[in-house]
């Protein structure tokens, strides 16, 4: 009951429950590192045989050449996969996904999008996500699962040939993998920009409150 009283007086400084629990902060930052390593080495790998009419500048790639980039990519994949599985397991087990990300209603998404675009969306309670956040955070988890599965289909098109076939074959899986990367990068740009605009959300992801 003391937590109730505290939250009435100082909502931002409540000592009862952190906005972001410890396990979320740990997997978040491990994921951030793994994603950056995967994306930058992935760009270098892409450059060896581009799908589109452009290459990534070597200033923003990791590994120096194809062989180095592959070493990074197939090392960081363990970090990404193990950390991602821990996140999914705890997200379901603790009820965080159900509490924070659901329900997502079309009406809620539309009204919150309007509110965001007209500057009326409030960030007074960081422990509650608005519908736009719910949609983006749930969506990026799905993209995260897809990028790992499409990556596995490219890596093991014989041993995991049924998975590869599910993506429409080896060549199509490469495009799926690329599009998922593009979606994650787009998410990252918005996510980082908004975290910098609402620094208390960034602080909550570092120290919990």
């Amino acid at each position: 009951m003391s937590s109730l009283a505290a939250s009435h007086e100082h909502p931002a400084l409540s000592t009862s429950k952190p906005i972001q629990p410890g396990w979320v902060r740990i997997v978040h930052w491990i994921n951030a590192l793994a994603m950056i390593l995967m994306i930058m080495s992935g760009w270098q790998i892409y450059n060896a045989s581009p799908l589109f009419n452009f290459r990534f500048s070597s200033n923003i790639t990791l590994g120096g050449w194809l062989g180095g980039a592959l070493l990074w990519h197939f090392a960081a994949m363990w970090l990404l996969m193990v950390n991602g599985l821990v996140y999914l397991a705890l997200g379901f087990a603790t009820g965080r996904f159900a509490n924070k990300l659901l329900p997502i209603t079309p009406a809620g998404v539309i009204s919150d999008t309007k509110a965001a675009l007209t500057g009326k969306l409030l960030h007074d309670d960081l422990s509650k996500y608005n519908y736009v956040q719910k949609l983006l955070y749930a969506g990026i988890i799905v993209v995260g699962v897809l990028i790992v599965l499409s990556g596995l289909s490219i890596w093991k098109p014989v041993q995991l040939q049924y998975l590869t076939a599910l993506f429409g074959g080896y060549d199509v899986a490469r495009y799926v993998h690329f599009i998922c990367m593009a979606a994650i990068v787009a998410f990252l740009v918005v996510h980082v920009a908004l975290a910098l605009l609402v620094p208390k959300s960034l602080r909550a992801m570092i120290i919990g409150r």
Partner: protein
Amino acid sequence: MGRLRSLLIPGVDKQLLVRDAVKVMPDLARRRFIAGGASFGALTLLTGCNVFDSFSAEDMLKQISKFNDGVQDLIFNPNALAPTFPESAITKPFPFNAYYELDDAPDINGKDWKFEVRGLVDNKKSWTLEELYKLPQVKQITRHICVEGWSAIGSWTGTPLRDFLKIVGADTRAKYCWFQCGDSEGYNSPLDMRTALHPQTQMTFKFGDEILPRAYGYPMKVRVPTKLGFKNPKYVISMEVTNEYKGGYWEDQGYNSFSGS
């Protein structure tokens, strides 16, 4: 500045927002926040791109690559066949790819060529092309996947390597079949024995029902549809059955040695 402004949420005053944010930060947190930023900045400034040099990223990556060899060996199913395709799916023209240009590719005279068999085998004789052509052959239409990412479907005909290993009395408990090639830099590549015994691993003499052209490795290549392209040596001149890991042309430069697909 104009670009930065467009990134802001409309209707939110930037200065008020920053002031609010700092106000709600407890003192300790504010200090930790700034200190964290400063040390990360200092780290990247001092060491440039080589943040990871202190614990030798290269050694760590090599160790993980060896670990990945083990993982791939574990998930390799010796009975899982690479998908096969109809004739109509064959990629035309099938790409030529090597560390050298086509003009510099080995130009081997099939009459002089001999395939040398060494190491842990009962019969160490060298084989002429004529002798090899007499062995039973099978055709496969499979996908060749390059380490660079592109893929192409081709038609390869030849003798399953496992049949040949039986004929020469190879010790199939040995770890590797190590192949050497006839190019100027001496391309070579180790093939793990389980993959060498895979039903689709083939000593290839024909491409698209024609005698293997120079571009694709005349007189013989080793086709391994469960491996990346660089593990499919062309212009092969010898094979050694061995327990020793002898490295390979690309493997030594950092490509993952198992490179299974």
